[in-house]
């Protein structure tokens, strides 16, 4: 496009002319959706930028943004950029100490905080952050009795700015004109689940070119409505609610509070929506539970038409041919079931929904797609400004994450690691030369740390973290998480642990889902007194066997992983538990600890025995320790010959 709009402040100026009277932003406040047009928003931002300048904000200074999705905090980002400064959004739910690390590391000189809670955190860490000079707050509630030497009300800073503008009418414009695409636009800190957070330095080119490419890819226009509810510090929100919004000129809606998101979603009816798989999963669960409570007639109607949708909906969405009779049934279903259902979910107007971050269960994926909701997957990283691969319309598969995003090259390294390069590739890690060099090589390829491969249809398939990927004795690839995810898609399997590294074949531990299996037992008159007894029940073993057989059948069709079929398994007598150190607090399997603790069982899986005795120590909820003893059965599972033809 034209060389002029290579920074966000310049895009803002453009949009304020092109879309002067179009709504750029809404916030629900006092029960009403308050709105700002692009022209109004420009005035607000310029006033703030002038105010910041009056307080001494200079080119290269950092402005930390601390709070949830509020229009004024988004304005803060652009105001800093107007002056050639660098905004640093921070995860608002971090405790003061975590914030201190980021603010100190980024050398933030100014802070815009949402409310008293965040201001208190800032005051707590102020002494340890020598660079921090001014704190500006959005919500004045409870702030009256604070010392106001370095503390400013947002509106007052804008008033100050309007005064400043009278004396220096051209100042902000000149600063804005100085900005160029290769300048640093923002620091996005990683959440730091492993070690200290890293500050990912992004240029305007990174964000704007990526946003422009993805806007074209999905044909987003100025008519989109987006609900901004994900943390502002997360790269996804920065792209969806800022980058793409400025490039396409669409409208951002800020919810009233965290607890009203679902109501606000329904009121706004976004056309473009992002959520992690967990959110879609929760929606489906809620719908299912509420349907169980509904009247007989409604239940039958729902079940009947959902069956119709499963048959026809996905095809319609993919643009495949559908018979006239099926089409008629589908539109009847739409009238009676789908449309009202979408309305309660807030998806009446949805045109495009994305999910990413984790594997999504195929039945969840299909549920939404069969209702006509175009939900797609993408694969991304902070370091890539989100997009590495995306699914094009009409080519949607639950188990792959799509083709390389426009302008992005993806290749698979010798060891199976996914590498990419493209316009969105980050500038560097702030003040961390070594990490930058470890992650990005001289040719610009970035190491994702994920293992994956391209399926035959050219779509990328992510299987595991590269450090968890092992090899069978015959040298073929073993990706435990991929297998475990496949198992966990069955509702009656809560957790699974796969083994196979440096072994001849793959085996697994299974944890049953007490709720789902207990429910099944109740309906089928299977008596049980404890988790352990239910887990050891032969009928439950049969049920698991069937599921695993299904997994094996699907693995047989996979060109790289057909060796990963599960030969033997056992059902654990206790649930894997973070209290016993077997899972992390975020419920990820800790392989090393499990291998130590259940070594006997793993041996038994490989020495052909039919059963194995184990005594495990457990920690009860009140902290006492006890032991459980059990004699576990080991079952063999049929495996299948690989159905993939060797490429000639």
């Amino acid at each position: 496009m034209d060389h002029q709009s290579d920074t966000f402040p310049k895009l803002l100026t453009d949009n304020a002319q092109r879309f002067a009277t179009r709504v750029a932003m809404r916030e629900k406040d006092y029960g009403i959706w308050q709105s700002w047009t692009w022209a109004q928003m420009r005035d607000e931002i310029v006033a703030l930028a002038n105010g910041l300048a009056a307080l001494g904000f200079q080119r290269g200074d950092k402005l930390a943004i601390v709070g949830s999705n509020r229009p004024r905090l988004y304005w803060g980002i652009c105001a800093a950029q107007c002056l050639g400064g660098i905004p640093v959004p921070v995860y608002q739910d971090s405790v003061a100490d975590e914030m201190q690390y980021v603010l100190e590391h980024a050398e933030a000189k100014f802070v815009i905080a949402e409310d008293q809670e965040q201001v208190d955190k800032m005051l707590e860490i102020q002494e340890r952050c020598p660079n921090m000079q001014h704190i500006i707050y959005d919500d004045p509630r409870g702030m009256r009795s604070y010392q106001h030497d370095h503390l400013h009300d947002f509106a007052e800073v804008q008033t100050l700015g309007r005064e400043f503008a009278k004396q220096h009418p051209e100042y902000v414009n000149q600063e804005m004109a100085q900005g160029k695409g290769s300048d640093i636009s923002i620091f996005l800190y990683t959440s730091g689940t492993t070690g200290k957070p890293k500050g990912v330095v992004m240029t305007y080119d990174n964000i704007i070119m990526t946003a422009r490419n993805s806007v074209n890819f999905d044909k987003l226009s100025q008519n989109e409505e987006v609900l901004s509810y994900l943390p502002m510090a997360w790269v996804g929100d920065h792209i969806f609610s800022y980058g793409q919004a400025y490039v396409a000129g669409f409208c951002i809606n800020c919810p009233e509070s965290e607890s009203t998101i679902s109501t606000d979603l329904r009121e706004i009816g976004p056309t473009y929506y992002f959520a992690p798989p967990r959110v879609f999963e929760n929606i489906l669960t809620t719908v299912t539970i509420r349907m169980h409570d509904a009247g007989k007639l409604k239940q039958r109607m729902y079940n009947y038409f959902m069956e119709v949708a499963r048959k026809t909906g996905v095809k319609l969405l993919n643009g495949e041919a559908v018979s006239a009779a099926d089409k008629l049934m589908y539109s009847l279903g739409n009238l009676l079931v789908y449309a009202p259902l979408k309305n309660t979910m807030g998806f009446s107007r949805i045109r495009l929904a994305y999910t990413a971050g984790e594997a999504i269960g195929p039945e969840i994926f299909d549920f939404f797609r069969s209702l006509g909701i175009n939900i797609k997957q993408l694969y991304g990283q902070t370091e890539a400004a989100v997009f590495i691969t995306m699914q094009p319309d009409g080519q949607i598969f639950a188990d792959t994450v799509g083709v390389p995003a426009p302008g992005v090259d993806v290749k698979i390294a010798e060891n199976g690691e996914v590498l990419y390069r493209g316009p969105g590739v980050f500038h560097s890690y702030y003040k961390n030369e070594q990490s930058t060099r470890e992650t990005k090589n001289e040719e610009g390829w970035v190491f994702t740390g994920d293992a994956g491969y391209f399926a035959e249809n050219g779509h990328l398939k992510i299987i595991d973290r590269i450090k968890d990927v092992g090899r069978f004795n015959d040298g073929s690839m073993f990706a435990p998480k991929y297998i475990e995810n496949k198992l966990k898609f069955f509702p009656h399997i809560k957790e699974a642990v796969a083994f196979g590294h440096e072994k001849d074949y793959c085996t697994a531990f299974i944890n049953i889902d007490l709720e789902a299996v207990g429910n099944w037992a109740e309906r089928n008159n299977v008596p049980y007194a404890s988790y352990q007894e239910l887990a050891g029940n032969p009928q439950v073993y049969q049920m698991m066997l069937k599921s695993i057989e299904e997994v094996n059948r699907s693995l047989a069709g996979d060109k790289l992983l057909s060796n990963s079929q599960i030969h033997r398994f056992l059902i654990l007598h206790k649930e894997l538990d973070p209290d016993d150190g077997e899972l992390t607090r975020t419920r990820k399997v800790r392989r090393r600890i499990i291998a130590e603790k259940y070594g006997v069982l793993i041996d038994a899986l490989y020495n052909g025995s039919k059963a194995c005795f184990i005594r495990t120590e457990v920690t009860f909820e009140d902290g006492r320790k006890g032991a459980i003893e059990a004699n576990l059965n080991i079952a063999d599972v049929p495996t299948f010959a690989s159905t993939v033809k060797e490429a000639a």
Partner: protein
Amino acid sequence: MAESTQDGRKIGGTLLEVKNISLSFGGVKALTDISFDIKEGEIRAIIGPNGAGKSSMLNVISGFYHPQQGEVWFRGQKRGSMRPYEVARQGIARTFQNIALFKGMSTLDNLMTGRITQMHTNLFWQAIWKGPAEREEIAHRERVEHIIDFLGIQAIRKTPVGRLPYGLQKRVELGRALAAEAKLLLLDEPMAGMNLEEKEDMCRFILDVNDEFGTTIALIEHDMGVVMDLSDRVVVLDYGRKLADGTPAEVRSDPEVIKAYLGGAHA
């Protein structure tokens, strides 16, 4: 004469004074010769063991009960025998020990009922609604929305109150009292039956109401920790008589109070 507390709040002259109140039901003497005052801007607690006459005292102030003897002075004027709604109109609002909300109505509607004393259009205009009544309702709705924002109850705006958990119902009731824009807020056991977290929230709200709106608050509470932390002055009742009156520290060290609460020391 205005004085300032440590945290910078202003405490002004006497807002309400009760003089020599005596109240009896048949032969039962609920209150005997009680006198105390409530100053503008303060948080005043009324404490005492069960049956001490705390709620009776509050009912006298809010006009529910009419004492046989004694006088109630509000904003420098002696108050004659009044009906509760007249008291409400004067600027006294209250909450109840056992929540008295309209269970079938939404939070928003419940709060709007708090504005009734401030509505001026007559039945005719209300029936037509378009015009003055509509404008008035919008103005009142705005006030109510500020209270919803203040109490952080946006998510339950449209939820019928009967479906809310107890702690939230208490908060809605406080909201309704706030909606009346009272000079004096009477809270009858605002934390009864709450868990620790709900209590902390409620304490925060009471302090914030006092701080932000400068509302004078009189409250009855059993949780001594709460009373000692919140209030500026405490009056202690026992068997319908006044036992002590003063700052939390003074009251705590008063031998009579210790005796009433913990039992006398036997030699």
